[in-house]
Structures are given as structure tokens and as C-alpha cells.
């Protein structure tokens, strides 16, 4: 985790963007429409030069310790081009519903920036950057931003007031409970305090992978991807599981 701080860590969501899907297909060099659901590659800062062979996962490193060592060593080749005072943008997931799912998958709380005016929303997000990257809060939350009130529907009892909503997703990330709301004009003074409090109170779920999937089928919870899933093993496993599950009725 510590070694990751010298890197820009990008985690794409495999079937949620057509353009990113195409990029990953080209990166892996697979036939059109056959992208597996995981991809791994280390790249130079230009985003073009490959520092490792693109694969489905980082197993080439064999152990987390070796991976951290190699990452430190590779990162030392590059000198930072920004001053220490530089603050990176807020790492937003592109859609609120997707961010809720990612937050549930990571077992983390979600922060949703909302303002009906796009310029004000941008101001809100930008002004929150120092808090998002604060040493005590870094990496603890998922983030999304929206100017559409519709996007707040999955958040139970959302008032629709502009500001920052701190949300605990349900186990499946299809809805969430608002645990705190910071009003638009109180963000500067209150956001850090409210995020810290939300973090202290947050209780991650204890999830059992197989039980989670079985229960998901029982509850009829299914995720529809933007691009149809194309990992042959995964597609086959899903078909098999569905037919087996339906046969249990």
C-alpha cells in the first residue's frame, strides 16, 4: 500500500465504459469482444511505455513484498514534476450508482458531491481536494459527483440539498444510508470533521463471497454492465450458476 503512493493507481471498471474497454483490449492484445474481466499493467508516466507485460493479474511478482520492492525500484526512476504543495484531483467514479457498487465491493463508505449547478459542483469538488487527500482520510472513501437530483434516489432519505452526502452502501451497493450531510456553504469548515466522524462509526460488512452471490440471486439482485461481459470463463460460470440455481427451485 505504501509503495502505491509513488504511483498513479488507476483501477478501471472493466465493463463500464466502451472507450476504456477498447483501450484494455488493445493493451492486452486480445481479439475484439473478448476482454477478460481483469487486467494488470505498469506503465511509465506517459501512459504508453509498458514497464511490465500486460497480463490478467500481478502474479509475476509472486509475493506482495516483492511487488512492493519492484514498485519502489521502478518509481525511483521518475522525478516528481510537481511541487510538494500540489494536490491531486478528487478520484471520482464516473457515476453515482457505479460508485455505490464500487464502495460496497471495497467495503468502504461513499462520498457524493451534489449541486444542481455544474460550475458550483466543480467548485465544491475542487475545494474538497485537500480534505480528500488529508493523511488521515486518504483512500478511506469512494467518491462521486453529480448535478442530477435523480442520482440521489438510491440514497435513502436524501434531502436534495446541495452539499456533500456521506453514505454507507448496503451490502450489494444498490442503495445506501446517508449518515451525514455537509451543507454546501459549510464544507470548508466541516467536511474534514464529518468525514472523520463517519469513518470512526463505519462498520465494514463481513462478507462471504459465495454466500454473497447466492443471496444476491435469492434477492434478485443483478448488475447490468454497460458493455456486455466478455470474459469467456466468467460468462460460462454465470450461465452454469444460473441454471444450477434455477434448477434448485
Amino acid at each position: 500500500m505504501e509503495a502505491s503512493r509513488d504511483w498513479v493507481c488507476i483501477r478501471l471498471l472493466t465493463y463500464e465504459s466502451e472507450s476504456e474497454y477498447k483501450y484494455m483490449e488493445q493493451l492486452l492484445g486480445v481479439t475484439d469482444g473478448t476482454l477478460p474481466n481483469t487486467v494488470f499493467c505498469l506503465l511509465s508516466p506517459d501512459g504508453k511505455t509498458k514497464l511490465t507485460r500486460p497480463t490478467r493479474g500481478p502474479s509475476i511478482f509472486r509475493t506482495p513484498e516483492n511487488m512492493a520492492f519492484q514498485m519502489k525500484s521502478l518509481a525511483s526512476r521518475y522525478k516528481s514534476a510537481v511541487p510538494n504543495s500540489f494536490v491531486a484531483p478528487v478520484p471520482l467514479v464516473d457515476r453515482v450508482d457505479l460508485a455505490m457498487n464500487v464502495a460496497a465491493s471495497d467495503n468502504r463508505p461513499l462520498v457524493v458531491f451534489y449541486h444542481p449547478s455544474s460550475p458550483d459542483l466543480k467548485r465544491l469538488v475542487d475545494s474538497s481536494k485537500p480534505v480528500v487527500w488529508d493523511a488521515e482520510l486518504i483512500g478511506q472513501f469512494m467518491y462521486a459527483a453529480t448535478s442530477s437530483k435523480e442520482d440521489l434516489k438510491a440514497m435513502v432519505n436524501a434531502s436534495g440539498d446541495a452539499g456533500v452526502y456521506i453514505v454507507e452502501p448496503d451490502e450489494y451497493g444498490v442503495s445506501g444510508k446517508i449518515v451525514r450531510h455537509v451543507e454546501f456553504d459549510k464544507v470548508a469548515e466541516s467536511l474534514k470533521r464529518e468525514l472523520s466522524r463517519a469513518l470512526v462509526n463505519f462498520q465494514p460488512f463481513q462478507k462471504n463471497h459465495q454466500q454473497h452471490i447466492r443471496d444476491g440471486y435469492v434477492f434478485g439482485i443483478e448488475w447490468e454492465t454497460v458493455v456486455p461481459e466478455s470474459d469467456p470463463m466468467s460468462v460460462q460460470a454465470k450461465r452454469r450458476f444460473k441454471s444450477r440455481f434455477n434448477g434448485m427451485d
Partner: protein
Amino acid sequence: MRFGMCLMPLLSLLAGATQIEAEENPAVRIVWHANLEKGLALARQTNRPVFLVSGAPACLGVPGVW
């Protein structure tokens, strides 16, 4: 039944874990950028290398798990 095709093996290596458990809260965590264009722009701007992974936040179509 096979679940091996999901992102769990990758995440396990990153976290040094072998099973799904609620992590320590808070623990040190990776900051993930979820948008390719913005992530690559940040890498160019800062001259930091890119750690790129991809995964689907659903397993066998069920969300809320990698």
C-alpha cells in the same frame, strides 16, 4: 462452482490477504482513480508511473463484490 475469475486473486495479492474479511477500519489503503483519461493526465502532469488494474465490481452478475 468457480469464483476464481473475479478480481479477488488480484486484490488478495495487493492486500496480502487470502480471504474476504472486513479490513481494519481505518487501514492504509490505495487511492484508486477510476477514470482512464483523468488518471493518465495526472500521471503525465506529476511524472509518476501508472499502476493500472481493471476489475468488475460484480461476480457472476451480483454486485457488491469483486
